[in-house]
C-alpha cells in the first residue's frame, strides 16, 4: 500500500514511496538518511525527534509522513547555511549546551521555534518552551544560557565566548 509522497525538507523537494502508517521520523531517518533527527522514546514525550513543520516544533514520531505532505519541514541538517552554523547551534557550542548530544537536534529546533515567536524570552519562558525536550545530561542550565545567548545573537549582536 505504498504511495508516492512529496516532502519539502530543508528547502528541497523529495519524493518518497511510503506506507500511510510510516511515521515522519522513520522516513527522515530510514529513507532519506537524515539521521540527525533522533528517536528517544515510544511515548511521544522526549522530543528527541523534534523537527520544524512550517516553522513550528513538531514531534516527528507523532506525525505521519503523509500528514507532512504540503508542509515545509526543517531538520537539524537544514540549519547551517554555507558552512556557517545557525546562531542557535553556535550558542549551544559556545555555552556548552550539550554533553552527549542526543537531545540536541530536537532541543535546538524547539528553541528556534521559541525565538521566532518570542525574540527576548525570560528564563521562565525558555524553561516552559523546552518542557517537551528531555535532556539526561546537562541539567538544562547551560541550555538556558545558550538560548539567552542565541536570543542576543539573533537580535543582531554576535555570541560572546566565555572562558
Amino acid at each position, binding site marked *: 500500500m505504498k504511495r508516492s509522497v512529496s516532502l519539502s525538507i530543508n528547502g528541497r523537494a523529495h519524493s518518497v514511496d511510503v506506507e500511510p502508517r510510516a511515521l515522519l521520523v522513520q522516513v527522515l531517518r530510514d529513507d532519506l538518511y537524515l539521521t540527525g533527527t533522533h528517536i528517544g522514546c*515510544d511515548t511521544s514525550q522526549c522530543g528527541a525527534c523534534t523537527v520544524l*513543520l512550517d516553522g513550528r516544533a*513538531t514531534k516527528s514520531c507523532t506525525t505521519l509522513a503523509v500528514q507532512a505532505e504540503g508542509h515545509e519541514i526543517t531538520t537539524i541538517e537544514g540549519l547551517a547555511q554555507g558552512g556557517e552554523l545557525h546562531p542557535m547551534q553556535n550558542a549551544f557550542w559556545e555555552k556548552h549546551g550539550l554533553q552527549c548530544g542526543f537531545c540536541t537536534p530536537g532541543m535546538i529546533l524547539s528553541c528556534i521555534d521559541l525565538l521566532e515567536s518570542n525574540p527576548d524570552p525570560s528564563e521562565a519562558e525558555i524553561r516552559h518552551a523546552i518542557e517537551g525536550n528531555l535532556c539526561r545530561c546537562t541539567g538544562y542550565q547551560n541550555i538556558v544560557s545558550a538560548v539567552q545567548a542565541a536570543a542576543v545573537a539573533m537580535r543582531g549582536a554576535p555570541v560572546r565566548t566565555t572562558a
Partner: protein
Amino acid sequence: MIPVQFDYVRATSLNDALKTLAGGDGTKVIAGGHSLIPLLRFRLAQPAKLLDIAGIKELSGISEYKRGLRIGAATTYRDILDSALVRDRYQVMMDATSGIGDVQVRNRGTIGGGVAHADPAADMPGVLLALGASFNLRSKRGKRVVAARDFFQGTFATALAEDELLIDMVVPPLPRGGASAYVSIEQAASGYALAGAAVVVKCSRKTVTECSLALTGLSDRAFLAEAAAKLLVGTKADPDTLQRVGAAAVEGIEITGDIHAPAEYRRHLAAVVVGRAIRAAIDRV
C-alpha cells in the same frame, strides 16, 4: 512501535469529509494525531482508514460570535494561545491551554481532537463545561447542537456518532465584570491533570454573586459541580467556605485511583485545585 496498515485520505472539503464518514466503513478522523497516533502505535486502535481533516478551512480559526466566541474544532492549542480574543476574555482557557502537554503537543494538537477523544484527564473539557459551551456537530444526516454537559459521556465516550464531525464550539461571554481561572495538578511526565478545576465567578463588593465550577482528571469524565458552586454564592470565599466547596465538588463522584494517584489523594487534590482556582479567579475580578 509501528501501527498496523491503514489507508489514508485527505478531505478536500467539509462536504467531502462528511460524505466519506457516511460510508460506514469504520473510517477514523485524524486532526493533529496527538491522541490517535500514540493509540495506533500501541495498536490500541486499528482503523482501516484515516480521514485527515486538518486542511479543511471551515474547521479552524477563532471568531467572535454572539458576544462570545466560536472556536473551530481543528484549531490548534498554539492558535488558541496566540489569539488576542481568548487572551482578553477567557483567562480560564489560556491557563488550561498553556499547561497542555508541551510546545510540540500544543503546536499539533487541536481543541476538537482533545474534546472528541474525551480523555478523562484532559484539561479542556472542564474549561468548556465551566464556560457553558455548546458544540456544533454535523453529518450527512444533518446538524445538531449538543451542550458540553451532555457531550462528555464517559472515558473516551462522547455524544459524537461514528459518521459525525465536531465542527466548532461556541463559548458564551463571561458574566459582565466576571473573571475565570483554571488550576490543575499535573501528572509529571505527561502534563495530564490528576485534578483540575475550571472556575468562572462574578463578585459584588467582594461577595461572590455567580459561580460556575467544573472538574477534570478525577473520574471517568469531566463534570460540572453545580451544588458546590452554589455553596460559594453569597460568601466572601473565606478559607472555611473554600474547604466546604472543595469537599462538595466531589460528593457522589466515583473518584479514580490508578498508578499515578490513589483515589484518596485525588480527593485531596480536588479540594486544593478548587480552592486555588476560585481564589485565582476572584483575584482577577
